[in-house]
């Protein structure tokens, strides 16, 4: 929610505290009941994740317990030995941050072109790029798999099974939405600003880097978070394009389940460790993400 709307509403609420605008009781009770149900639905798995990660093993192998018999941080220590979680973590970190960095850099230039110029092929570009979003991932998977394998055979360039191949794939997959969102942010930067910069002798590039990018920085950060989340969570391509050395978290976490006995407390602990940075980043930046996502839709 934008700050302006928030303060306006707060002011409005203050002006007429018990006016006829106060919702009727029927509405308030409907709201209470429905939101409570939704809260239970949403929060239960989160509670399970948190509480189970602090349980000793016998609590998660027998019948389910709402309350742990004892609290232990043992699972958080053991997760690093049961599977090579540290390596998976590092792989995911390398892949996701490289893909994010490259994707944002490429998207900034493309979005500037889309936002500021009217050129031949502009509509074709945006429509094509956005429509790739609707295509099933499985459609790209088989050909990309073949391309990477055969390129490797031809040139000795190891794309299949390497982090490079995965980075290349992820950065392209987040590119369309990044361009779309960034173009929306750039549209909201007044044109007068970069026109003034161009008049003062900056080229288009200077205007972009010195004026538009700083002004749209929150948007760029939001796009980066989106890209990072996408790369961090991707399963389909990671499942075929990685090997034991380059395996990322999305596939690596399933390693706990293939043991003879599933250490559910460790699985939950590992899930939590993997999720916390992403969730924190998302919740901090969600308002910028929303502004970008809806820019095109509600215009």
């Amino acid at each position, binding site marked *: 929610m934008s700050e302006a709307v928030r303060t306006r509403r707060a002011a409005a609420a203050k002006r007429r505290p018990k006016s*006829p605008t106060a919702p*009727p009781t029927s*509405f308030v009770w409907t*709201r209470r009941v429905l*939101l409570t149900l939704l809260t239970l*639905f949403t929060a239960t*798995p*989160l509670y399970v994740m948190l509480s*189970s990660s602090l349980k000793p093993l016998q609590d*998660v192998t027998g*019948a*389910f317990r709402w309350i742990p018999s004892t609290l232990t941080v043992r699972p958080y220590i053991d997760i690093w030995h049961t599977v090579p979680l540290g390596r998976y973590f590092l792989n995911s970190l390398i892949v996701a941050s490289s893909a994010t960095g490259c994707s944002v850099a*490429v998207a900034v*230039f493309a979005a500037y*072109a*889309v936002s500021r*110029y*009217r*050129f031949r092929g*502009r*509509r074709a570009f*945006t429509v*094509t790029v*956005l429509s790739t979003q609707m295509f*099933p*991932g*499985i*459609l*790209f998977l*088989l*050909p990309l798999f*073949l*391309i990477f394998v055969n390129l490797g*055979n031809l040139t000795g360039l190891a794309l299949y099974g390497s982090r490079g191949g995965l980075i*290349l794939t992820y950065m*392209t*997959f987040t*590119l369309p939405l990044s*361009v779309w969102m960034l173009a929306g942010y750039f549209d909201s930067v007044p*044109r007068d600003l970069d*026109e003034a910069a161009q*008049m003062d*002798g900056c080229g*288009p590039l200077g205007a972009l880097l010195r004026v538009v990018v700083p002004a749209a920085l929150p948007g760029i950060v939001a796009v980066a978070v989106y890209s990072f*989340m996408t790369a961090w969570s991707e*399963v*389909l391509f990671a499942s075929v394009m990685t090997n034991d050395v380059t395996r990322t978290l*999305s596939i690596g976490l*399933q390693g706990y*389940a293939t043991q003879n006995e599933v250490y559910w407390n460790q699985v*939950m602990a590992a*899930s939590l460790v993997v*999720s916390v940075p*992403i969730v924190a980043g998302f919740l901090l930046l*969600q308002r910028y*993400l*929303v502004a970008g996502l809806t820019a095109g*839709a*509600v*215009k």
Partner: protein
Amino acid sequence: MSATTGTHRPCPYGRSAPDARAPGADPGGGGERPQPVRTRPRFAERLRRGGVPYLLLFPALVLELLIHIAPMVIGVVMSFKQLVQQYIRDWGAAPWSGLDNFRVAVDFDAPVGQALLRSFGITCAFTVLAVALNWLLGVTAAILMQDRFRGRGVLRALFLTPYALPVYTAVITWSFMLQHDNGLVNHVLHDQLGLTGSRSFWLVGGNSFVSLVVVSVWRTWPFAFLMLTAALQNIPQDVYEAAQVDGAGVWGRIRHITLPALRPVNQVLVLVLFLWTFNDFNVPYVLFGKSAPEAADLISIHIYQSSFVTWNFGSGSAMSVLLLLFLLVVTAGYLLVTGRGGRREADV
């Protein structure tokens, strides 16, 4: 620097201003603009300016071509080839097979076609159910949380958390909850409430469809909530105040102002949800592992399995192409019916 640009000063400004300020006036970007005097520097300037957007787009274009467009074309080519395991490392040598792959895929009397058709039916049922529930939960929560109340911010953060979680951690947690012996769902339904005679299996058999829908909705409805919340903030407050003056109650306002105002967002949202849900691979793959139960055999998983189990990429590609054609037809039909096609492109 300032001296040279000084002479050209009116040029870039004057030229970019009219077309930049009037989007849609000349979307093709053609060049019929009045140009009273054509001098050499002006022409060079125009060339330079004309090339700039293409230069800016170049890296994005290359990547899109390499990772999106080329594989798509290759995928279509592959679907006409007999691309079995022995040709994977040298796919140029695979013999052409014409429409054989497609014929097998849509031969609904043979096992392959039958399985594909069944998987397609399951995917359709799953998509309709999941999209409807996602939208319903999203719109309910968004409208109920439109007005301020204590704890709204906390609740909003909580509701968004499932969407922010990496898919696999969310789904792994659910698969723990759905375990037969030590899961929460059976504990509540059987041990605590006594609703079921015995503990049910949730990850195999017919129940797996229900599990799939629930997990998918749990993860995706926050997105609908997010989009609709943003859309609600764009409804001007004075519209509500005017309705207030006219004596409309809170339910009347929801029906006559809020829901109609959400129409444009709903149209985009439902389409996006449809495409994501129909193509979903992550949730079933993590929930069921490599072999999805029959009742929850979504089309992406089906194609993935039949491709990597048999290593028959030709047939897998043919199925992917059929899937793409179906999605194209549905999307085009949807955009036509909702009358959004033209406007959307203008917005882009």
